């Protein structure tokens, strides 16, 4: 799909520290750091292996820097489409605050620094996984997938799923099944999370020529896919209880949040959200689903941290 794009003319303005901080996509960074920390805490709790608190803090800092680097690389490459979409037109590059080259330089330097810090603070496996996740988001998702396929979010979702595996590897130097279960939760969670937002912003994506699912397959197909992935997420979310990775607190939290997530998905599925008939009500519903999906992931990983970090781990199963 190719669309003629005309970026709005913006005169340059003085960059502030906030502009450079925004370049790192701080909200995504927050979730990435949180899930990496959960992976780290769960690894300590399950394996009994310890990690020096300062080394753990540096490892988490490295994950944060890596996430920021990938965000800067994404903004560097996507500056043209960001300028076209009103939601992203105020970002540092399209608003004229930060030159594209600076974003690229910042992204590349931070990538190197983050991987180096991770290697020094933990081990080569965690550093390698961090490098892989930066490349996956900054290059594979941003440059290869995003403008080519409607499955960009599904395949690209793996980039955001790496942090708990990296956190686990930082402690143990290995990535057992438990770590990959946490990966699977985020991987399956990403499509319904992002497609809920894209149901609201589909016109913008169309204008920018980005083949998001609502643009290529329509709103109904997107709502079907959201419901499908949400139903698939239900057993995957509870998988840690079966393996013994998580206990009662996690099980109860996940069950409640899963019911809520499915409720929103069904409500959205039955609505006209993203379609030509959609109004403010549907828009609000899609945004509620998007907001709840963040709460869902936060709740799951918070329960995992509380269980393993505060001695409240009472396993139900385990094989």
């Amino acid at each position, binding site marked *: 799909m190719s669309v003629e794009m005309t970026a709005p003319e913006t005169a340059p303005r003085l960059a502030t520290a906030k502009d450079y901080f925004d370049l790192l996509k701080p909200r995504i960074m927050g979730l990435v750091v949180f899930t990496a920390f959960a992976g780290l805490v769960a690894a300590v709790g399950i394996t009994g292996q310890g990690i020096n608190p300062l080394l753990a803090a540096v490892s988490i800092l490295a994950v944060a820097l890596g996430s920021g680097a990938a965000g800067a690389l994404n903004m560097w490459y996507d500056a043209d489409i960001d300028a076209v979409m009103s939601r992203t037109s105020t970002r540092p590059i399209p*608003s004229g605050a930060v030159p594209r080259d600076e974003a690229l330089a910042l992204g590349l330097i931070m990538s190197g620094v983050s991987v180096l810090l991770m290697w020094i603070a933990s081990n080569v496996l965690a550093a390698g996984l961090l490098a892989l996740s930066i490349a996956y988001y900054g290059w594979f998702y941003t440059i290869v997938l995003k403008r080519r396929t409607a499955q960009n979010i599904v395949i690209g979702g793996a980039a955001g799923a790496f942090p708990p595996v990296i956190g686990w590897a930082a402690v143990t130097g290995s990535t057992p099944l438990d770590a990959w279960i946490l990966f699977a939760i985020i991987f399956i969670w990403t499509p319904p999370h992002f497609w809920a937002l894209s149901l609201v912003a589909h016109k913008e994506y169309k204008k920018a020529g980005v083949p998001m699912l609502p643009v290529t397959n329509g709103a109904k197909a997107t709502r079907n896919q959201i419901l499908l992935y949400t139903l698939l997420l239900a057993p995957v979310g509870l998988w840690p209880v079966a393996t013994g990775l998580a206990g009662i607190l996690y099980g109860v939290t996940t069950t409640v949040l899963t019911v809520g997530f499915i409720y929103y998905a069904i409500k959205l599925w039955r609505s006209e959200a993203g379609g030509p008939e959609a109004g403010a009500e549907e828009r609000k519903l899609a945004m509620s689903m998007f907001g709840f999906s963040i709460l869902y992931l936060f709740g799951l990983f918070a329960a995992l941290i509380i269980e393993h970090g505060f001695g409240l781990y009472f396993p139900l199963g385990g094989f």
Partner: protein
Amino acid sequence: MSESVQISEEARVKAQKRRNVWLAWALVAFVVIVGLTTAIRIQETDFSGGDRLYFSGYLDEAQKEDADREAQARYEEMRAAEAEQTDSSEQPDE
């Protein structure tokens, strides 16, 4: 939409200087973090293995070697105990 301003040379230089200060602090932070991390890793490292370093997987090897040495010592102790027992049972009563 974002506000747009005309940038004077003076304002540009001032902003550049401010950014340089931020960069300098970032570099200082990086040096401090690497220094602290290295200090902790050195404390955790057993250098009795010669020129091997922690990031070459030396600690794992060292742990394995320690376990092997302990197993060998236990084995030798057991053999010695067995030999002693045999000797005492073979000695004729006087």
